[in-house]
């Protein structure tokens, strides 16, 4: 597996060498041109994380991140099925995007300065405000993360999680023994088997893991959140037009929730809602879609197919036990805020 992954990383590094200079910055959008010519969007997603990206029993990818891939496909062709999903690990996701193997990443990836600059990416918008937490056995008698002094903690390598953990331990003078395992399944397995006292990752990931356990009540997510993890889709730096599209799809979804437009009433609203911002968003007036290079009915199609931000959240993340929390609309005391679509 490791050898395979290494070979893959090597192959991607090789692909970076072989990829022609055709993707150099050109006017327009090379990514969009390539997607249109291909007829499908190639979207890098998680290898399997309940609620965010996971194939269902029919093998159809479902989840919060998956819906962002589908939203782009709907904006382009009004067809949510025109997406090819490429499962990526924490380790090979960046090379996959850099080398052009995928068009975009929708894979619970934290937006950081170094990824934005030295990796050559752009993060159009924060789709999910997350933070790192800890999960322990309910029987361990741990109340807060500070009780974890001396504990063994399971963590996945190659993520910001690893660095947050060491930063937090340093600032709180906590000593811990790390057990670093690459695949989620084995890392969680080691925690469940008792090799580690705690398992750490983003709170969303913990909730997904906990919900997938045979007896979720045996596990407890500690109240402490030790980091900021703004999860965002990622695109290659230098293709502003494609980045704009992804960015405004997210803002459109949030704006639609704010305006109370849902999958159920969007057709109705497009016909009869007289509010000018609704008219603009749904393409009745103005040419917002064309400015982004897509059909003016883009938001109508997206909301009819996927619902607004709140509906996407409820459908995918509420079942694994996640609250809206910081992802509530700004009008409800959350952080999700969309600039005006005009």
């Amino acid at each position: 597996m490791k050898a395979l992954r290494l070979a893959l990383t090597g192959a991607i590094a090789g692909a970076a060498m072989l990829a022609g200079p055709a993707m150099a910055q050109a006017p327009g959008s090379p990514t969009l041109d390539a997607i249109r010519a291909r007829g499908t969007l190639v979207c890098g997603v998680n290898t399997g994380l309940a609620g965010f990206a996971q194939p269902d029993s029919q093998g159809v990818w479902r989840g919060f991140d998956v819906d962002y891939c589908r939203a782009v496909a709907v904006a382009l062709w009004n067809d949510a099925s025109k997406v090819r999903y490429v499962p990526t690990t924490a380790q090979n996701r960046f090379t996959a995007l850099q080398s052009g193997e995928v068009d975009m990443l929708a894979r619970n990836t934290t937006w950081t300065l170094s990824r934005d600059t030295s990796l050559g990416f752009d993060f159009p918008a924060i789709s999910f405000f997350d933070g790192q937490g800890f999960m322990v056995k309910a029987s361990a008698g741990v109340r807060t993360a500070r009780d974890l002094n001396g504990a063994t903690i399971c963590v996945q390598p190659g993520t910001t999680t690893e660095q947050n953990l060491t930063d937090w331990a340093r600032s709180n003078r906590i000593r811990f023994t790390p057990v670093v395992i690459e695949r989620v399944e084995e890392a969680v397995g080691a925690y469940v088997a008792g090799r580690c006292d705690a398992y750490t990752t983003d709170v969303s990931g913990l909730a997904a893991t906990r919900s997938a356990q045979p007896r979720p009540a045996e596990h407890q997510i500690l109240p402490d959140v030790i980091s900021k993890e703004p999860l965002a889709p990622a695109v290659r730096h230098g293709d502003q037009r494609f980045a704009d599209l992804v960015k405004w799809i997210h803002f459109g979804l949030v704006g639609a929730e704010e305006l109370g437009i849902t999958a159920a009433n969007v057709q109705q609203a497009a016909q009869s809602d007289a509010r000018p911002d609704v008219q603009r968003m749904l393409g009745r007036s103005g040419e917002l879609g064309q400015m982004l290079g897509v059909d003016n009915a883009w938001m109508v199609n997206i909301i009819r197919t996927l619902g607004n931000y709140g509906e996407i959240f409820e459908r995918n993340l509420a079942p694994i036990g996640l609250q809206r929390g910081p992802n509530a609309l700004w009008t409800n005391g959350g952080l999700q805020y969309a600039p005006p679509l005009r």
Partner: protein
Amino acid sequence: MSTSTADPRQNSAGPPRRPIRLSWSDERLRGIVWQLLVVGVVLAIAWWLWSNTVHNLEVRRIATGFGFLDREAGLPIGEALIPYEPTDTYFRALLVGVLNTLKVAVVGVVLATILGTLVGIARLSHNWLLSKIAGFYVELIRDLPLLLQLLFWYTILQSLPGPRQALNPVDGVFLSNRGLLLPFIEWMPAHNWALLALVAGFIGTLMTARALRARQYADGQPRKIWPAAVTLMAGLPLLVWAALGAPFTPDVPALRGFNFQGGLIMTPEYFALLLGLVTYTAGFIAEIVRAGILAVNQGQWEAAQALGLRRGDILKRIVLPQALRVIVPPMTSQYLNLTKNSSLAVAVGYQDIVSIANTTLNQTGQAIEGIAIIMLVYLTISLSISLFMNWYNARIALVER
């Protein structure tokens, strides 16, 4: 060889040299043209790959270079042979990774050789049960993928009881899913000197053995080596240790909080990897040893039996030394395999060079540099093994007199 020959025919400088004609019908000119062409194409491809990589990296604003090695790593490492803190640099983190790889590779090679040789000999045994067990072992171990075996061992080790219910067979020894803990002593500088004395004693013993053998060749009298060995390898270190104040503070592991503190620990990750690599490679080594023994002419056995030697002595003194010549070259490949297979470590959470370099390249985004470091490390280790084994092979080669 040609210098020692006195045959005048060998002294001629070959056929008379003709000047190269600038014609396609000249065989030598054709040869030169083709070679230039091939070298040119290879160089052109290499240049194109290089310049295209640099161009693409620039276009995508991906920083290059090895400057990141001096930056603070901030990655946690579970077990390290040298002191390591997350505040140390990436360079030190990678060094820890290299040492961890060597730790499993060196111990693995030694243990796999011992186990493999025993199983190989056992398979040739006249004892029906022993040879069948050895054969079953070889067939089973060789036919299963190594990754599967590693995960198997790791799962087994994880199913040991937790630290609070740890097995405690002898005072101070604990076995749990946190690893095997053994009592040790608190390490002081005096112990380092004693260790050095042990190494010196070992070298001294080798030299004494050589001197004794030279005297045996001279007068035919066998002499005992063990008094000198005990004095040099046990007495000398003890003397050094005593002279430096004989510091001895036992360091017994004890359960404090979540984990055991103190003592020596063998983590389940390391143990699973070592166990997997040793048992797997030993399966192959056993077959190599068996092949080597079978390659020795049956007449050697019969001749030795005629001299009245016992079976064990025949194996030790007659057959194995000759078998070594057949065994060593394929054995080198197995050592290289074991070393490279240790990169499967990340599957069971052991932080070897691949694991740490992968994390490094992920945190810094320096994928090409990270892969280059991994390749360099394995190349260095593998070439060292090859060099040593080639030297050893040349040493044991049949010397014809």
